[in-house]
């Protein structure tokens, strides 16, 4: 008896300790992270995280256009915002004039970037996503830069010509550019980089029409195309075509797993890799022989990686982090906006074009009826979702091409909230009050807010909706890509050109069972024809017309109900001058002109 008593007393003590610990852990966790990431267990990624920042997308390589290449085949291509041959734009903005780094007065300093994004490696020719692109664009230069209005600007290419028939692009490279190991950057490296991207990058349509790259001399590269491909210039953006050294990488090894993607990294960009601890820190030092005179201004860029966006917010507030775009939920952004010591802006990153939408499985008997889908559209109040629930940090969007894109068509059916209309459409489709029951999935951590709102909104129209939760991202992706769902909240990125980020969702033959391809089962030959034509149209006005018509059809047939576009928020310390807010790629662009006023 005595023994029993002691033992159960111990047990009781132990239990109480565990209980207390668990309570403390709960409280501590509540204070801290909004992203359990790699902590205790893989499944903790399912931790609810209201309104994240699209982390899922950003560092996911098989994500985004991922693997959709097969489906997209070669029938598409991109756009050319500034149509003409863009010739002779050499040396205006981007080349450092006498004004660079505050007239040379402010050279030096260390810029600290906070990020939750863990890159797989640093070689952007084979790895898509934000996590790789931010450090990758500091370490490697690309042929072109972009300003904040989709205009290409010279970078490694001091000028370029697009042939009149659109079937070739000639790049004229700067002559004195060298890699971090001192070897010159030549047209052979450009050709090698393009071929590497073509063979390995998940965004297959970017370079699918490229047939060959000629190198008539060391500083001239001619890209030959099988068809007009207006997206080709955007595809030479910093994040999409880093120029990598052929003499290092052309050794027959598998590119995605090449050791030099992280070790002894030799790049072409304004900063060279000094220290790399996966998932912890990326330290990049000024490259003194960078080809743009007088830059970079900074001595160092240090990326501090933490899974916890709350920690980033706090370190922005106390000034130990200079710059971040992974700020976590809306409340964090609003909190930073109230802080006079931190600048918050949605400028920059326009090309990403994130769109949150409600996607229907058209194979479902109820949802195959267009009237049901339209009724759902009339029941949802985008304005309320964006302005009240998301507190103005997102803005409503009625179509699948983001509002910042030159191809956005706002003049489509907006489905302004109209409950009577919704009920009438449901009645026509044969569903009375409360007779239609549906389920809604969502990308686990971040999108529960949108799903919960849709449940409430549809309840008002007499549709009963249950949340269907997936424990983690891969489970959700598998269910949605496998057609095992009725409705889901999704977020898909435009990636600058519709050819890269938009076509994949609608083409009949892109239903390939991979997430972020055609997951709805939508198929309209007219839409396919419009997209095919738009992908080859070199005249931007005509191209915009084709996309406008495409957007009208999609709005009427509602295979997807578009909700809103989250702004891509950046917060930075006021001492950061020339912050990456002045270009469509934001931090996925070199920061050689950023300087610190401290």
């Amino acid at each position, binding site marked *: 008896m005595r023994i029993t008593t002691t033992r159960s007393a111990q047990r009781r003590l132990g239990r109480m300790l565990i209980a207390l610990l668990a309570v403390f852990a709960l409280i501590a966790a509540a204070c801290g992270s909004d992203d359990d990431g790699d902590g205790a267990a893989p499944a903790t990624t399912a931790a609810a995280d209201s309104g994240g920042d699209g982390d899922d997308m950003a560092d996911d390589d098989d994500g985004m256009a991922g693997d959709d290449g097969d489906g997209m085949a070669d029938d598409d291509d991109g756009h050319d915002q500034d149509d003409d041959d863009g010739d002779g734009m050499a040396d205006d903005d981007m080349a450092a004039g006498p004004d660079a780094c505050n007239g040379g007065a402010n050279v030096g300093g260390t810029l600290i970037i906070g990020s939750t994004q863990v890159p797989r490696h640093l070689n952007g020719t084979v790895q898509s996503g934000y996590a790789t692109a931010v450090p990758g664009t500091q370490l490697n230069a690309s042929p072109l830069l972009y300003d904040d209005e989709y205009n290409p600007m010279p970078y490694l290419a001091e000028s370029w010509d697009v042939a009149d028939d659109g079937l070739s692009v000639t790049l004229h490279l700067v002559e004195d550019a060298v890699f971090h190991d001192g070897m010159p950057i030549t047209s052979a490296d450009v050709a090698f980089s393009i071929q590497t991207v073509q063979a390995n990058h998940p965004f297959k349509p970017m370079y699918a029409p490229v047939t060959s790259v000629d190198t008539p001399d060391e500083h001239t590269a001619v890209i030959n195309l099988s068809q007009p491909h207006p997206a080709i210039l955007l595809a030479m953006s910093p994040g999409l075509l880093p120029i990598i050294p052929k003499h290092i990488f052309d050794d027959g090894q598998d590119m995605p797993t090449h050791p030099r993607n992280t070790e002894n990294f030799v790049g072409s960009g304004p900063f060279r890799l000094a220290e790399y601890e996966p998932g912890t820190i990326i330290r990049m030092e000024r490259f003194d022989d960078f080809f743009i005179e007088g830059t970079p201004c900074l001595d160092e860029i240090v990326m501090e990686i933490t899974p916890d966006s709350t920690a980033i917010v706090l370190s922005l507030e106390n000034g130990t982090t200079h710059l971040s775009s992974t700020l976590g939920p809306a409340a964090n952004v609003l909190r930073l906006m109230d802080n006079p010591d931190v600048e918050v802006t949605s400028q920059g990153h326009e090309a990403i074009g994130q769109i949150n939408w409600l996607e229907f499985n058209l194979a479902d008997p109820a949802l195959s009826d267009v009237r049901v889908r339209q009724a759902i559209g009339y029941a949802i109040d985008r304005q309320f979702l964006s302005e009240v629930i998301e507190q103005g940090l997102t803005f409503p969007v009625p179509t699948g091409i983001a509002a910042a894109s030159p191809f956005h068509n706002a003049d489509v059916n907006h489905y302004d909230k109209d409950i009577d209309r919704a009920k009438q459409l449901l009645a026509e489709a044969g569903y009375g009050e409360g007779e239609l029951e549906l389920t809604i999935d969502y990308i686990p951590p971040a999108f529960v807010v949108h799903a919960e709102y849709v449940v409430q909104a549809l309840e008002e129209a007499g549709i009963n909706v249950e949340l269907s*939760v997936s424990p983690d991202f891969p489970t959700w992706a598998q269910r949605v890509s496998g057609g095992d769902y009725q409705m889901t909240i999704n977020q898909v990125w435009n990636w600058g050109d519709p050819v890269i980020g938009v076509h994949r969702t609608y083409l009949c033959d892109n239903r390939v069972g991979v997430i972020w391809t055609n997951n709805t089962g939508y198929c309209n030959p007219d839409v396919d024809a419009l997209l095919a034509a738009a992908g080859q149209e070199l005249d931007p006005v005509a191209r915009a017309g084709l996309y406008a018509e495409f957007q009208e059809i999609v709005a009427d047939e509602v295979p997807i109900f578009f909700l809103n576009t989250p702004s891509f928020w950046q917060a930075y310390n006021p001492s950061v001058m020339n912050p990456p807010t002045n270009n469509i790629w934001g931090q996925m662009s070199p920061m050689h002109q950023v300087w610190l006023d401290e």
Partner: protein
Amino acid sequence: MSDAMGRGEMAAADLPVAPGPVAGDEGGSGGPGQQNAGAVRPGRETLRLFMRNKAAVAGVVMLVGIIFMTVAGPRIYDNDPKDIVAIPLTGPGELEEARLGTDYLGRDVLAGVIGGGTTSLTVAAMAAAMVLVIGISIGALAGYYGGWLDSALMRFTEFFQVLPALLFAMVLVALFEPSMWTISFAIGVVAWPGIARITRAEFLRLRNLEFVRAARAVGATDWRIIRKVVFPNALPPLIVSATLIMGTAILFEAGLAFLGLGDPNTTSWGLMIGLNRGNFLTAWWSVTFPGLAIFFTVLSFSLIGDGLQDAYNPKLRGR
């Protein structure tokens, strides 16, 4: 020998020729030959000791309050915890329709705390019931029969005991759709080994005592002896553990929901904390109130368990 145990033992010892069943029967407790306490019934004595423990009484009061809140609350305060009632993230006290403020979707936190209690307590009760059924069955069989059956069942128990409980529960919930049933099931499956081992220990201790042997001698079947003779005498430590299991189950449910493995269609305290924690810096109320609810519920179960433990402890008797 303890009073709690003594009851059956005395009865059996005094009635060697009486029919076995009398041994542990309710009727037996008042039987002749009591050495101690004369007419004082052990149950009443336990209650007296329990009532003397102020912390335990506070636990009971707290628990009754919480149960009243979850049962009667929705009738008095009829906001649906899932409805959007006001501007999101409004602080407590600012609105008539949401006294404790609103969460990120504009739902009423007070309604959530009231409504979430039903889920948390139901899941805890179902899980505890499951733990008791599995744990007592396995522990009783192992302890009573011993031998190879004991070894086999205890190895089986250890298999469950060495798995990290929360991780195992997460795996189970992830395998099925998260719902109140699967969550209760998962908690039940991971939490029973403790009860099984306590039951086994009690049965091992009791099975060879005289009154049990007496019952066997008069021809009672094993099933009858387990049920009527041994089990009632093994109850006190089990009752204590069961109360603690309730607290553990609530924490488990909260932990699972917090990690995003709760049933998203049913408001629970853990789910509220999990969903709102991203807004903790700006909207403390959306996590603090459900957190306090969990805290007080678990605390009340712990206090009650503690009090029962002391009340059943013979060493404290007569003080």
